[in-house]
């Protein structure tokens, strides 16, 4: 799943909570925010792999922090470029890829799927990090448009394309349906993810709310601040879920 600034499918996140899904393993590409905090607080999550989980300007992710502090979920800390690199390896179908930097961080000690190795092309000593490819079971995100050919348009949010390429299945919600085939349009095509990678598409008007879709609606700062306050306690979080997630008639965003 993508970070708060890159169109998580909040509509599906709310539905996962309403259906009481359990034991999900979340991968943040490369970080996570509200979607992860909601799923963790609702007890849907067994493990998180991410470079960070935060509510950005609204502060710490309270349900995530408490769950890790109490040992209720497993946390696998990552580094942003290592997540991107592992997914790029998967999209190329190679078992691993090298990445500069990161050496000397305690992250390396914790990750059995990262190895420090000698650069095979260097005649002198040159340690470099190898990260194992990651192929997520499911990629889940929201898109501005889908079209009749089954493509999705995400614009410059190209990490969403990388997730779709690397994942075994990709599920996309979208704001609006466009007639025709966006890949036939020279202006739109660079922001398109081809239907070849997409498993299922579903309409969800304002499906990223309370997060934003660039050029359509902005992140709802007031709502995020409200959530950050409410979720400081389990009781406040439960009330938030009742009000905004688990009541069928309220599980949609205000128009």
């Amino acid at each position, binding site marked *: 799943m993508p*970070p708060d*600034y*890159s169109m998580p499918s909040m509509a599906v996140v709310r539905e996962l909570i309403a259906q009481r899904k359990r034991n999900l393993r979340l991968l943040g*590409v*490369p*970080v996570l925010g509200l979607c992860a905090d909601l799923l963790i607080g609702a007890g849907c999550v067994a493990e998180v792999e*991410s*470079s*960070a*989980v*935060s509510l*950005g*300007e609204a502060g*710490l*992710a309270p349900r*995530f*922090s408490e769950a*890790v*502090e109490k040992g209720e979920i497993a*946390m696998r*800390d*990552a*580094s*942003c*470029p*290592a997540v*991107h690199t592992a997914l*790029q390896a998967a999209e190329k179908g190679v078992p691993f890829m090298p*990445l*500069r*930097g*990161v*050496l*000397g*961080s*305690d*992250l390396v000690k914790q990750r059995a799927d990262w190895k420090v190795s000698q650069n095979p092309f260097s005649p002198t000593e040159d340690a470099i990090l190898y990260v194992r490819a990651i192929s997520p079971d499911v990629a889940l995100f929201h898109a501005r448009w889908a079209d009749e050919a089954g493509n999705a348009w995400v614009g*410059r*949010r*190209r*990490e*969403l*394309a*990388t997730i779709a390429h690397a994942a075994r299945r990709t599920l996309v919600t979208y704001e609006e349906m466009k007639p025709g085939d966006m890949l036939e349009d020279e202006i739109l095509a660079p922001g398109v993810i081809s239907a070849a990678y997409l498993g299922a598409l579903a309409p969800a008007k304002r499906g990223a709310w309370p997060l934003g879709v*660039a050029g359509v609606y*902005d992140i709802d700062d007031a709502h995020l601040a409200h959530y950050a306050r409410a979720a400081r306690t389990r009781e406040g979080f439960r009330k938030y879920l009742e009000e905004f997630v688990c009541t069928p008639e309220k599980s949609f965003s205000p128009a």
Partner: protein
Amino acid sequence: MHSREELLASVIARLIGDAKHVAVGAASPIPATGVFLYKEKHPELRVSMLHKRKGNPFSEGSRELFDLAGQGRLDVFFLGGAQIDGEACINLVRAEGRRFPGSFGSAYMYQAVGRTILFREEHSPRVLVPKVEFVSARGDPAALLTGKALFSWQKARRRFRLESVHEPGDVRPHTGFTYDQEAEVALTPPPSAEELELLRGPVAQKISADYPDFAKRVWGIH
């Protein structure tokens, strides 16, 4: 008179050196202010604001920042930490039983970027520790700037050196790690009249677009 934020921003502008490209991460209003102050005097500087509310400096998704930094196309970046230790390691993961968001891309950026400036406003033994509980990232910083002092980094000795304090007084009681210092420690030079004019004029206007609360608090801009 100047505010503490204005002083810190003017120090950051001096620390940038002769950079061509600077990136500023999320929740960094003071580094952003320093960068825009520098840009007023050096308009050719490329500034990549990574979490702009509108727009974005990249078109290849969030990996593009890391890829261009890895190529050496980024000269200055800012990192902070829940803890920073005397070996210039930073910790963004956990401290005193509390969990923090995580390391983001710090382990990579610290080594990829030409000049990493460590910045943390809080200067206390809680933040500036002898040894971090978790090493998120390790590297050779250009400097460590706090709300009380400016340190340079002695790469060969792997030890900080106190360059200046923002107000007269000994910062040792507030600093959990040991460092080198001269018998007489300089005072951090305040922002010049010209710098203050720029800060309160064009820089404040630019900052208010991405940090409205900060601009309102420091300059009363609405």
